[in-house]
């Protein structure tokens, strides 16, 4: 059998996991903030940017190709007309930094966070 584990196998596995953790940490660090916005991008152009509050209740229909539902402080891809349905299966986005991507239609739904500096000045 050529599957008897050697020390190099653990090096490979460790390297993959460290890379995964580093990427995850980098993504989490880049999008901090207490004000949440849902952004809808199509062909790398911003289509919609909606502030997410508890009262948010909106449905964005991209010509029937993708239907995005913003509800409260969450967003999800309700339907897509592509075959892989990866974006729909991504589920509900609740935190800043999370994204749902529809590759065939080149649609990105993401939640971005911004710090409430403006509010702080006003108050």
């Amino acid at each position: 059998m050529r599957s008897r584990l050697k020390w190099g196998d653990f090096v490979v596995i460790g390297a993959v996991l460290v890379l995964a953790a580093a990427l995850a940490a980098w993504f989490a660090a880049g999008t901090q903030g207490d004000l949440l916005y849902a952004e809808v991008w199509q062909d790398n152009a911003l289509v919609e940017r909606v502030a997410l509050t508890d009262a948010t209740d909106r449905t964005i229909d991209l010509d029937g190709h993708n239907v995005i539902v913003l509800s409260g402080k969450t967003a999800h891809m309700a339907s897509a007309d592509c075959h892989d349905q990866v974006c729909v299966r991504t589920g509900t986005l609740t935190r800043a930094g999370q994204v749902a991507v529809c590759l065939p239609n080149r649609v990105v739904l993401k939640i971005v966070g911004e710090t409430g500096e403006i509010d702080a000045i006003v108050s």
Partner: protein
Amino acid sequence: MQAKKLTLCGMLTALAVVLSLVERLFPLDAVVPVPGVKLGLANVVTLFALTRLSARDALAVLLCRVALSSLLMGSVTAFLFSLFGGLLSLVAMWLLLRAEGRFCSLLGVSVAGAAAHNIGQIIAAVIWMKTGAVVAYLPFLLVMSVPLGLVTGLTCSVVLSHMQKIDFNV
């Protein structure tokens, strides 16, 4: 000898296409909550071709598999993604196979191949989407590539040891 090798390459290509078709029938991401995750059974064929044939033959099998399976069931995007993932996976496994036996086993090679496949697909996705947002999927896919790579590596190792039993040589 040449005919035997050609026949084997053809069979491996057919096997890889069937495996990708079967894989599509049972989407793994319906069970594991990682969107886009796949078992990567066709990678077993690439790994087998790399160990028993040559890098050139493995590349030929890979290119034929990607072209055929994209024609059968995919789209332009599917072709682009499989191509990038498959090529990067092939290169990673080919490089690591040189150290197999001393540094690592077939399992490590397979895990590296699975991880490289995901990285390649995400690179294709970044080019296609013209945005880096897709990279957010990569950490989950990389974590999953460890158990999935171990499974495909083990599969290939079992196949190879059976081949040895029946004294199969190309």
